[in-house]
């Protein structure tokens, strides 16, 4: 336990000490929000209004995309924070950790929690923009979504850990992660609905953990019950996998299971490691 805490605290301390990183992590999600929110809302909203004559004009794209942007921020930060593993290897500190009696599970979990905490903090920072964007989410639903954001961030940073444990160079890691992150964002329903995709893309959507993360975030934050059914369908708020409607609970369980598997895999890689 102490080991997890120590590894976690080290990464958090270093995050707040790195001014450039701090600035970047404040600004990047805001940029996404401005570009996607501002740039796409006109198109998306007029499309909806055209498609759905009654009620379509009430559609607010920003309200739809906001949870998606939060999920995207979580993804980016979680996966890239795993870079700290490669840095630790390069600068030798990983050796200090690996020769210590800290259990290998604790190393994996500590690193995962560190990345997930940083990602969640960034996600929460985005919530501060809600009033500025003229959005209104239920305060309770925001409180509910925060623990889930942490879980989702754990799953995603676990993915980063796994890649960091097999890739040796910083540049290589960044390349691979970029290739990985883009389809994960675009094929998750975070930014646009994922209806009527070709079959092979459907397959990617189905195995993409971000899909389930976005699904939960949108369903918790957007007031689905008071949204016209056509809009719910048009915006893909009802996720179906293998002809089964995915419930919020089901999606949460999927993410939790995914996280556990990644912890096990990362632990194995630390067991084999000899920095």
């Amino acid at each position, binding site marked *: 336990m102490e080991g997890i805490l120590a590894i976690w605290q080290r990464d958090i301390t270093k995050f707040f000490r790195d001014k450039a990183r701090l600035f970047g992590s404040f600004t990047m999600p805001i940029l996404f929000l401005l570009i996607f929110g501002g740039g796409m809302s006109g198109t998306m909203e007029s499309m909806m209004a055209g498609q759905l004559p009654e009620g379509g004009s009430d559609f607010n794209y920003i309200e739809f995309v906001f949870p998606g942007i939060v999920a995207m921020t979580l993804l980016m930060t979680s996966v890239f924070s795993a870079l700290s593993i490669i840095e630790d290897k390069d600068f*030798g500190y990983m050796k*200090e950790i690996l020769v210590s009696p*800290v259990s290998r599970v604790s190393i994996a979990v500590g690193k995962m929690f560190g990345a997930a905490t940083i990602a969640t903090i960034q996600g929460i920072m985005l919530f501060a923009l809600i009033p500025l964007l003229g959005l209104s989410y239920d305060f309770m639903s925001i409180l509910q979504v925060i623990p889930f954001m942490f879980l989702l961030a754990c799953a995603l940073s676990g993915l980063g850990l796994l890649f960091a444990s097999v890739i040796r160079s910083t540049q290589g890691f960044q390349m691979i992660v970029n290739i990985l992150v883009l389809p994960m964002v675009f094929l998750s329903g975070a930014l646009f609905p994922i209806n009527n995709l070709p079959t092979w893309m459907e397959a990617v959507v189905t195995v993409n953990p971000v899909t389930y993360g976005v699904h939960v975030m949108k369903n918790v934050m957007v007031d689905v019950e008071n949204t016209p059914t056509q809009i719910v369908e048009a915006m893909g708020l009802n996720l179906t996998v293998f002809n089964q409607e995915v419930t919020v609970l089901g999606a949460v369980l999927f993410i939790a299971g995914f996280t556990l598997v990644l912890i096990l895999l990362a632990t194995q890689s630390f067991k084999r490691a000899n920095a």
Partner: protein
Amino acid sequence: MAAMIEVQDLKKSYKETEAVKGISFEVEEGEIFGFLGPNGAGKSTTINMICTMLKPTSGSIVINGFNANKEKNDVRASIGLIFQENTLDEKLTANENLKLHCRFYNVPKNDRERRIQEVLHIVDLNDVRYKKVETFSGGMQRRLEIARGLLHYPRVLFLDEPTVGLDPQTRAHLWEYILKLKKEQGITMFLTTHYLDEAEISDRIAIMDQGGIIAVDSPEELKRQLGGDIIELSTSDNAQAEAEVQALLGESDEFTINDELIRLQVENSDAFISELIEALSVTITKLNIRKPTLNDVFLAFTGRDIGEATGT
């Protein structure tokens, strides 16, 4: 005394090569055990296996009564490591680095402050406790690293080339401290260095070459085994001198030619030297008579100078 480290028939092979070829040795509690050998001899591989960082192909390692293959965490808690490369977190302060170490090794909470002060005092870094490590000089970082390795009161301290890159004064200071540790705390030390004068402080030395251990003994005994004094000379015509020395020594082959230097070993140099001078028809340009050093031991066992062997 009980054995602190017991290594038996330890082997490590990679696909094609056998890096460590079944070595066995024991390190007794409280002794300083020197581990010498050229690069590629298998030293690092051996140390990594002892420190649980590398899985042996076969053989057994027992440290402080724990099996390094099965009771990894007990072994890890029993040892401290000072690596040759930097393993500090430079973005953190000295204090933070030490605190983290206490937490990794489960040092009792109420004892941490006292121990941190104690080790900082030992390496003389009290003044910079709250400064970031990146502002430290190389020597200061090394000292901090040593302080950190002692925080959890290890039973065995592994020192892998601990003084590389340190100025002579810091080096001397460091050895003084290491000897003090040995005397006061009875910490067992496992030392690798290629400064052979530093290896002299070892109680026993193992010489490793090409994956095997070729000698284990005290430095004095190793030197004594070489037999006698060493005479090194160079002359205006080494080829001629070589023939004459050969004639003088008879069948004995106890001399080597190293670059420009003829090196020979004799039981008693006092009597021999006048004979030698008389026997040589060429002019002697350099003459040196001395007691054997560890470098001579190394040379005798491996056929190489440790300096050339390690490429420094």
